[in-house]
């Protein structure tokens, strides 16, 4: 099993959610996060005062999928989150040792 963490632009969340549900992935964890990456923050001026937005608001979507479904899931996220511009985000993939469903005690892919 693999954990897929995607950092995307906030306004792309609905697209990603929809695309994932189209391939049968409904469960995901969504977090509002702040990015400090290549895409730097910026400043705005109002009435002579500077207002700095020093981080870039992003969304983190986390899903865990079986190894067989990994490529499909990653491709789906990539397509949905892509606007062709800088700051579209990144996808991180890491191995997951075990998954246990609290209620039933099911383990492995059954618990996904």
């Amino acid at each position, binding site marked *: 099993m693999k954990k897929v963490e995607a950092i995307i632009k906030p306004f792309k969340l609905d697209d990603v959610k929809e695309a994932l549900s189209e391939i049968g992935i409904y469960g995901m964890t969504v977090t509002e996060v702040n990015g400090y990456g290549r895409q730097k923050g910026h400043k705005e001026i109002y009435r002579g005062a500077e207002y700095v937005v020093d981080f870039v608001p992003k969304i983190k979507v986390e899903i865990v999928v079986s190894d067989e479904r990994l490529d499909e899931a990653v491709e789906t996220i990539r397509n949905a989150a892509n*606007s062709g511009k800088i*700051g579209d985000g990144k996808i991180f993939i890491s191995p997951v040792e075990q998954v246990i469903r609290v209620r039933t005690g099911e383990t492995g892919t059954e618990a996904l």
Partner: protein
Amino acid sequence: MDKKNTDIFIKKRETLIGQFLSGDEPEFLEKHAFVLDEYFFTVFEKSITARKMTMAGTPFAIIALGGYGRKEHCIHSDIDLLILFEKIVPPEVEAFLQELLYPLWDGRFEVGYAVRNINECLEMAFERFDILTTILDARFICGASLIYTGFMEKFRSDLAAKHLKHTLNYLYEHGEKRHFDFGDSTYLIAPDLKSGFGGLRDYHTLLWYAKIKSGIKTRRDLEYYGFLSHLEYLSLTESLTDIWKIRNFLHSITKRKCDTLYFEYQTELAGLLGYRFKNRQPDVERFLGDLHKRLDFLKQINQIAFEDILGTTRIGKGTIEFRPTKIDGLVIKKRRLHFSNTVAVLQKPDLLLKIFLESGLRKIPLSIEARRIVSEFLHLVDDEIKNNLAFIKIFKKIMSLSYWEFNVLNVMLATGILEKLIPEFSALVNKIQYNHYHLFPVDKHSIRCVQIINSFKDHSGSATKSLYYSVFNEVRNKNILFFTALLHDIGKSDPAKEHSKTGAKIAKPIFERFGFNSTEVKDAVFLIENHLILIKTATRRDISDEETAVYMAHKIGKIRLLRMLYLLTVADSQATGPKAWNEWTENLLKDLFLKTMGIFKKGELASKKSQRLIDKRKKNVIRLLKEKWREDEINTQLESMPKRYLVHVPAQSIAGHIKLYRNLKGKDFIWQISKENNSDIRTVSICGKDKPGFYSKIAGVFFLNNLDIIASQAYSFGEEHVMDIFKVKPPKDRIFEKEKWEKAQEDLVHAINDDHFLDNALDKIPQEIQVSSGKNPKPNTVRIDNEISSFFTIIEVFTYDFPGLLFSITNSLYRSHTNVNVAMVATKVDQVVDVFYVKSLANDAKIESEQELALIKKAILESLPHITAKEMNNEKS
């Protein structure tokens, strides 16, 4: 141990609980206490150890404490017992406790007990206030009643003689601490039924106070001794009955002593308590609405208790009296506002509102009596007085005095006068939205919004706070802002989905009633109808795209509306709860606001004139193309075009560009050359994929082919394409014009594929040019404006015309890692002002670094030829 006795007790109790849960036992609490009493009585009666102790001259009393003492203990509440001896506590008591308590512990009851003599008990009671309050509720169960009465007499006389002030002080401070620790139950998603503000403890506090002060025995005495009015007593009984019922059901489903009404139990409880889906409102929301009403009442009970405690003893809370009020008919007594008498109210009904104004201005709370009078004299607020301008003015002023620490509007709501003034508001009272997102009932949320708007008057704190402060100060008509804050959710009275639209309709007559003029009403209706648009756009649209801000500016239309909408959105989100408001949303919203403001201030794209122009152009384009394409197809295409393009390009050309774009079909670019009527100029429209340096490469290719560029514009076209328009002087050799263009087209293909294809052309750019205009030619100037647009760095180049000028500048821009998104190039005689809207290629945003900007400026200046004046004699010759 008598197992049989225990079994009988457990069985009886279970039957009783069963009856209660099925709704057949209205007297549950009383009977629950009785079943327990019966158990203790039986054990005591049958116990040989107990008899032995009594015979040996050490009789004792079994006393119920706390909730059990009050006969108010719920299904899994603790059972608190006191085994009280007069002087000596004999060792045999251990054996008796085994008989008495072990069976209960085995049955998993939470039993707490203490074995003490009278003196120990008194000592501890006055040392530890939690013990003292349980003794206030003590009730004799069985055993030596004289010991109990003796103890209680001593306890009461000691309390009155030595510990009164101290105890009251404790009651007050403990109450404050409890409210701080547990929060206001009416503002929590999982309210604490016992300890929160509005919980049962607030009633206990009043009861304890009355017991301390007047030695009352039961709840009923609260009315008999004048602590509560008859109506208040009735409401208290109703509220307690409901809350106890909920608490018992909560204990039953959680199978433990659980007093926090967690979110996940709320739906189940609503069903168990018999709530049903009605009037399009889910059962759980109706259940929570009723509960909030009860909790709200207990909050009032608490205020009565606190005020009475303060009135009895001047404790800690500052003893300086306020200076007298100047309002005729009002007085300040014991740090509370009172009506001087009820006759004054009858004569001057506007006092009913003035008292709130004075309360807000001076931050002095209304006395409980004054609240009672307001509630009971509401009929005086008739239509005549409601339409009185002076009366309305007072209300408007009160709105601006509602703060978090001291909220007059909440008191107005509690007394019913707010609903009297705005009857439509009644539908929001205790209206719950059952989800994790909306923390408060709609009425409380709306009042909180007004409060938050008021908090913008304070600019201390973060930079963003100072932005709110500055925007708030720019809002001229603050009354509109306050009223829209109070009424923005008025549409939620109807559980239909689009509450903003419904709300705007409901709010319109309210604003008219309050004497707002037609422009103000229009503004208010707009704000209410669109109160979600900013937050939705900020979180769901690409705010780094200029078009988003332009769209927003068009939708809002006026700067004053944008300012008010921004503050309203901030207040609304903050008042909703932590899920709706955090640093993340705050930043997105701020960004969108500042960017939209930028579009307004620049005027180019947001003015009414430009909007009209765009609308007209769109219509014309549709007219020109409708024979070939469906209208919705053309519309979609037009929607994807930047506003700047629609403002600057005529309809005829736009129609041509759409045709051109449709023929692009995967190619890198496609162009169309047209001849202008009566002129020797060619217009080259080029549609291509948006690749870095594309614009510069076209300029280079034209230069390479000796095609002189007179003017040019560049625009983005949809998401991934560009539309560049060049006005060019045709080749000198007209016979082979077609071939020349074909050659240029081939060169452009090469240039796109080979970044160095045009390197040779650079060498042909002149090093020096001579100009004849005036004696002292102006030097080349590059001006960078990074403030006017939130999206682009704007670079203006002032120079004189020369072959390859545009290529020279745009090549420098490209080599400095910027992309030209918009260009406006025009030549007047030989003077040139070229304007470029560029973004950094690295992050697709405007260039923020001063260092980078300086480098770009330097690169452009170095690429330009040296300017010298033509010598005078040359000119003459």
